[in-house]
């Protein structure tokens, strides 16, 4: 039944740095910087102002748009300022609420445990929204939106994504070992929100202990199944995971998993949802893997949203050796940072530091037309042609080759023997195409 997805690569895992390191809480931050854009969709407006005293879990930013998620204070204290600060994913200053912690961690009055058992799907989805839940795998898509499929698209299957296919990252892995019960609770709530009766937990076979833990926990649960997937990158991408587990093809964009009756959610998101019911606390913290050969003591840390990178790096013993590159996320899809003065956001799954010796510093050479990028593209695109057109700024041609469908997973750049910057070129084309589409849409309305 399981045929696997198209393409993909086998990068070295590098997970040994942190896979056996238990999650520990990071030091309480003295100051948190909480950006008002931490999700895909409409940015939030600040609901607090300079000088306000806030409590843990208090809403500090919200938007009325459907595709959005509110942000909450992760510490109690005084709002120091509301001003643009450097954002780790967008790479430019965006409005953020800066809170000076008073160290008391006073909970907001609205925080109280809720029982999910007797809630209707609508009420569960409303809680997802008010808890500020977004996909914690990295893309940070608002969870409430994902769990509100239109009526004409019935969902029959729920997949819990524990693939964690990015090298180095072990946050989901550790959570599956240490928060097994919470993940299962969260998963059940998600299934009830969708009205599906069966769910599958998908884990790659390079995490045998996580597989064993989940299997043990689900032994007497007939409606939840655990599957072991042969490790391959990018299996953790929704569409690829659906193909691997269910052998269903999600139609090309704008096709979504719900078009084939599936909703996929990350294990960390399920964990956070369970906490949102158990304690009533919205999404104010997450597990971040701080790792890489240039980090002295790699660790999995439970971090308050808004904690600055440099504090976490310090906590892990600081940089070691010739640190030359800092990345938020994994090495395949992560975003290079030029400053450690950026906050952890909801989508920060890892902080990775590489040394000069881990990097390729050579020049890209000419394409030898080997076609490996075509073989490994999980979206069945032709990266070499798209990138060649993009580099010549022939964006219409790139669009005709479906450049906009690219996942930016990085398989093509990874496999290219000439080390050509394929993803960068395709990303340029994508950006251009998206801008043009937006302009066209604006012109037609």
């Amino acid at each position: 039944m399981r045929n696997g997805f198209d393409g993909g690569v086998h990068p070295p895992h590098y997970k040994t740095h942190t896979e056996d390191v238990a999650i520990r809480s990071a030091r309480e931050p003295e100051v948190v910087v909480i950006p008002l854009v931490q999700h895909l969709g409409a940015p939030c407006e600040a609901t607090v102002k300079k000088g306000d005293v806030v409590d843990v879990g208090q809403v500090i930013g919200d938007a009325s748009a459907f595709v959005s998620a509110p942000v909450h204070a992760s510490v109690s204290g005084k709002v120091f300022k509301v001003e643009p600060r450097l954002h780790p994913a967008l790479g430019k200053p965006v409005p953020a609420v800066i809170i000076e912690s008073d160290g008391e961690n006073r909970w907001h009055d609205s925080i109280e445990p809720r029982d999910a058992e007797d809630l209707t799907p609508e009420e569960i989805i409303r809680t997802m929204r008010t808890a500020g839940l977004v996909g914690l795998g990295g893309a940070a898509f608002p969870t409430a939106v994902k769990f509100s499929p239109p009526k004409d698209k019935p969902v029959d299957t729920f997949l819990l994504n524990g693939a964690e296919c990015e090298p180095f990252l072990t946050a989901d892995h550790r959570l599956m070992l240490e928060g097994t019960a919470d993940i299962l609770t969260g998963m059940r709530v998600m299934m009830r929100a969708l009205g599906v009766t069966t769910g599958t937990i998908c884990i790659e076979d390079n995490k045998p202990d996580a597989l064993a833990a989940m299997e043990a926990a689900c032994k007497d649960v007939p409606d939840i199944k655990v599957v072991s997937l042969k490790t391959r990158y990018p299996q953790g991408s929704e569409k690829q995971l659906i193909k691997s587990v269910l052998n269903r093809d999600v139609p090309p964009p704008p096709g979504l998993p719900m078009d084939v009756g599936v909703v996929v959610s990350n294990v960390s998101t399920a964990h956070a949802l369970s906490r949102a019911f158990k304690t009533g606390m919205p999404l104010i913290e997450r597990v971040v893997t701080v790792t890489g050969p240039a980090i002295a003591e790699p660790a999995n840390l439970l971090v308050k949203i808004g904690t600055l990178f440099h504090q976490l790096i310090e906590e892990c013993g600081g940089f070691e050796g010739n640190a030359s590159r800092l990345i938020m996320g994994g090495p395949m899809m992560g975003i290079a940072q030029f400053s450690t003065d950026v906050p952890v956001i909801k989508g920060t799954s890892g902080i990775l530091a590489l040394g000069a010796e881990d990097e390729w510093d050579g020049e890209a050479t000419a394409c030898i037309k080997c076609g490996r990028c075509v073989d490994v593209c999980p979206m069945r695109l032709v990266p070499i042609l798209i990138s060649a057109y993009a580099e010549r700024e022939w964006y219409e041609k790139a669009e005709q080759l479906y450049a906009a469908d690219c996942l930016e997973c990085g398989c093509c750049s990874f496999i290219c023997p000439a080390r050509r910057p394929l993803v960068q070129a395709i990303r340029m084309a994508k950006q251009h195409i998206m801008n043009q589409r937006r302009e066209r849409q604006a012109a037609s309305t």
Partner: protein
Amino acid sequence: MIPAVISLVLVGFLFGGLLALAGQKFAVEEDPRIEEISELLSGANCGACGYAGCRGFAEAVVAGRADTAGCPVNSSEVDAQIAGILGLEVSHREPLLARVYCQGSSDVSQDKSVYQGIETCAAAAQVSGGGHKACADGCLGLGSCRDACPFHAISIVDGLAVIDPKLCTGCGKCVQSCPKGLIALASRASTVHVLCKNTDRGASVRKYCKVGCIGCRACVKVCPVAAVTVDDNLAKIDYDLCISCGACVEKCPPKCIVEERSHQAQAAS
């Protein structure tokens, strides 16, 4: 052998005659002035006039669709010659010059990261932080404008695009090529310019660029005709009011306001 030669010669004459007839019958009358004007133009086919190359512009001028001074590359003499050919009045056009509104070469402006990847400014501007330069608005120096210039007027010196005013024709090709919007066309006659586009606060600008505008308003205070304004931490000169007295140039602490003559004299010495 002989019959073959004869038949080939006959066939040759026959087709020759046919071609001559066709040439007369289907001849396209072309205005000789198009050719004449084409020869006066630079032949760079830069497209700055809005027509498909120099020939397209010549056709448009003769047809009366384009202004005789519609080619931004031409000198005023050439404009007069074109007008002469067509028997039209010479229309006056302000000669334009492209300028790079940044002086942040690598010796005065810091980098915040090392960029590896596609060697064009558009690609570099897309990475986190808008490129390797500490100043988010500064010249990236990868030469997209140099590659776009049809007249080889732009070079990259110490990581900064520099335009040679002698070679620049004001066609504006470079203006579109700059992802940071640092190049603009302005009259050749205006000589005082704020060569900075950074809108950060002065204290932060000082940390990474020695020649960035800090919004100190010294220029505003000293200007006798109120041509300088500071908006969003950046000085701006209203060219319609500016009398090019150079008072602000003297006062500017980071020397981001520049008078072109002195600039050129400096470069020469």
